[in-house]
């Protein structure tokens, strides 16, 4: 007993002295929600998962799908069965072996656990079949090309069966996965601490011993922590802080395109408030689009750090439609369109989440659209209230963003299809629906791009069910001693290869 405790103290001391030098401290903009891959919802939570829970597949800098816990996959001839081969010799943080049974248990849990937010992502999976200890087959109800992309995120995370059995729905308070770091402690709203897992299958790529995540909401304070050396890396830096960070020799600012977008959702068919000139006339919507200069928004509000765009995927995505032009601002034509529509000065109530930069965007849109004759009235609304108003159809136009998914389907399907869960404006067109379903069924990228071009011709060029405005960039600031950070468009922080000098 005594030798045991002495050894423990010695080990703790040894660990403490080494850890101080090799702890990666990451500042997050919010406190993550529950750390359970089945129930989790937040972006910051996904950042923590990137160190905690490996997935069957991952995406790389070019958005290509690469194996992680899987080693390969193949589709059946009818595209209705996906066979996945697993990496041998992988262990969970509790020492259990990761095998086909464990994968089946995790996917079944995603599909059945009460309150699961993964179900809607993979509900085409009808059954998970264990072919042999290192092979699973997912049988689908319909062909579904985005499935692998779903398995690059939380739906593809494999949880320890033993921990699931013991913790049940409380799994999130002590998650046990097969990622590079294991869960050590969490103090709500203060910190999440992860420790290196020595049995990680890709141990050679991990160079730090501990990762500490600290949620700090105020961006000034977040940056102050980085400048004072209390943090090594912070996410989602304010674009307007970019210049100050670049001036500081001890800091680095890096950024890459994100997967999501920001734009105007227009209520075209959700209740009474759709019955406005903007909601009823595609001409008025076109006039609104023509009155806006997207690049001006980017320059004025975001110091030119973001990317102006009329599409639902960013230019770096393989699914960006190269032959879809960005309409230039044309006030004269906008005025003509409004005259043709019989409403030379339509009133538009624009709902904006109440935060400083989006309010500023609203003001820029307001003044640009005024020149074409629009009378835009801004309604700055606290975010939770705005979400509910949007879902109920209590809005005319809503300036809102989407964080984006690696497969383009995740950026368009549920927003533009008649029954889509996020289609707050209730845009509905039978042909668009048919095309979106078709794009889901073919795994070939070139064919899908051709289909999405047809969707854009109807949804954007003809109807303007939504007006996309810009793509953010994932801006990270880190201390100069941090090296090896890879910028993947999903904006997650992958600890593999990261070093602290």
């Amino acid at each position, binding site marked *: 007993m005594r030798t045991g405790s002495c050894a423990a103290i010695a080990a703790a001391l040894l660990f403490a002295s080494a850890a101080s030098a090799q702890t990666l401290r990451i500042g997050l903009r919010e*406190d993550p*929600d*529950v750390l*359970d891959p089945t*129930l989790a*919802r*937040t972006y910051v939570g996904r950042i923590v998962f990137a160190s905690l829970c490996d997935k069957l597949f991952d995406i790389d800098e070019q958005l290509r799908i690469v194996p992680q816990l899987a080693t390969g996959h193949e589709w059946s001839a009818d595209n209705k069965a996906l066979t996945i081969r697993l990496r041998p010799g992988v262990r969970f943080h509790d020492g259990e072996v990761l095998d086909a049974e464990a994968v089946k248990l995790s996917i079944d849990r995603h599909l059945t656990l*009460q*309150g*699961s*937010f993964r*179900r*809607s992502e993979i509900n085409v999976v009808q059954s998970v079949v264990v072919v042999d200890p290192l092979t699973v087959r997912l049988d689908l109800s319909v062909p579904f090309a985005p499935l692998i992309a779903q398995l690059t995120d939380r739906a593809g995370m494999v949880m320890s069966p033993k921990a699931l059995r013991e913790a049940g*729905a*409380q799994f*999130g*308070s002590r998650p046990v996965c097969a990622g590079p770091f294991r869960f050590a402690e969490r*103090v*709500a*709203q*203060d*910190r999440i601490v992860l420790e290196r897992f020595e049995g990680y299958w890709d141990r050679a790529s991990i160079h730090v011993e501990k990762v500490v995540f*600290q*949620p*700090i*909401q*105020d961006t*000034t*304070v977040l940056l*102050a*922590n980085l*400048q*004072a*050396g*209390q943090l090594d890396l912070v996410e989602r830096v304010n674009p307007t802080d970019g210049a100050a960070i670049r001036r500081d020799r001890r800091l680095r600012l890096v950024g890459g395109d994100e997967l999501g977008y920001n734009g105007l959702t227009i209520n075209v068919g959700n209740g009474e408030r759709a019955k406005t000139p903007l909601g009823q006339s595609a001409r008025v919507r076109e006039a609104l689009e023509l009155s806006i200069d997207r690049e001006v928004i980017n320059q004025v509000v975001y110091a030119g750090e973001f990317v102006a765009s009329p599409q639902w995927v960013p230019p770096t995505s393989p699914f960006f439609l190269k032959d879809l032009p960005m309409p230039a601002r044309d006030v004269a034509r906008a005025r003509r369109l409004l005259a043709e529509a019989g409403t030379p000065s339509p009133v538009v109530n624009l709902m904006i989440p109440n935060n400083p930069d989006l309010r500023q965007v609203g003001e820029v849109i307001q003044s640009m659209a005024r020149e074409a004759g629009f009378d835009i009235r801004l309604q700055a609304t*606290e*975010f*939770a*209230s705005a*979400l*509910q*108003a949007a*879902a109920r159809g209590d809005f005319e136009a809503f300036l809102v963003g*989407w*964080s984006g998914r690696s497969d383009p389907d995740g950026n368009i399907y549920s927003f533009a299809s008649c029954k889509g*869960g*996020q289609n707050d404006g209730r845009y509905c067109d039978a042909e668009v629906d048919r095309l979106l379903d078709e794009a889901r069924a073919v795994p070939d990228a070139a064919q899908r791009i051709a289909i999405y071009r047809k969707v854009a011709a109807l949804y954007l060029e003809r109807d303007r069910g939504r007006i996309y405005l810009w793509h953010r960039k994932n801006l990270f600031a880190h201390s100069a001693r941090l090296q090896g950070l890879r910028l993947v468009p999903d904006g997650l922080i992958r600890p593999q290869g990261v070093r602290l000098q």
Partner: protein
Amino acid sequence: MLTFLARRLAQVVPTLFFVSILIFCLQQLLPGDPALVLAGEERDEQALAEIRARYRLDQPLPVQYLYWLGGVLQGDFGESMRIQRPVAELVLEKLPVTLQLGTMAFLVACLIGIPAGVVAAVKKDRAWDWIANGVALWGLSTPNFWLGIMMILFFSVELGWLPPSGYTSLREDFWQSIKTTIMPAFVLGNAIAAVLMRHTRSAMLQVLGQDYVRTARAKGLAEKVVVVKHALRNAAVPIVTLGALEFGQLLSGAVLTEQVFTIPGFGKLIVDAVFNRDYLVVQGVVLVTATVYVSLNLLADVAYILLNPRLR
């Protein structure tokens, strides 16, 4: 004394009951569906329905209230929807943080406010009085978040003396804990010091003009003794009342200051919970702080009696 205490204690129960109804109803006036906020981007109807059922959001308000009250009476404050941990556990986790910060801020306030008030009263209409008044005005009118950010930029970023934000508990590392809380304690204490100074000054002025003070001086007592022992002691009653109220306010969490310094106390817990529509957390924290507030009021009453024998 005992009957007085018993009467005051008896008033506590209906007060808290009323608070519990009030906070429950006020919250329902907030727009925003908790399940929708919880889901965020992952808006799946089936999952939303399951969440509403699990937290009884689909039931009528009185039913929700009774379930909650029933739980509270058995010591069960429910569970945070966002991070799925018991509310009681969260409250217990944050309580020492807020207690520490509140106590330190209160000490700062007393150490600055009371001596400054005494000096200002004794040196009425002279340079010291003007200086103390000027500083008090500054303290009252400086916004907490601004002062906080300025202090972070100066002491942490420029000089590198103190950590810019975060919290270490006293048990974990005493000095580090003091370091992480000294700036927020100063910011909080600063504003209260100004209020305390103003009150101390006026209470002292009143007392210093009284006959017994003149008598004390006439007896040939040293000025220090007159001021501290005779005047201040009698001026203390309103100062204690005010102090208890301010301390109560400190314990209900310092919303802006905790946000700026990322101190995981009550203020931050409750603000985050309101924005996330984490109703059970809001209700739990408000009920606990209301209890603390009511108890402090009670303690202030007891302190009066101890300070002023005439009230016994």
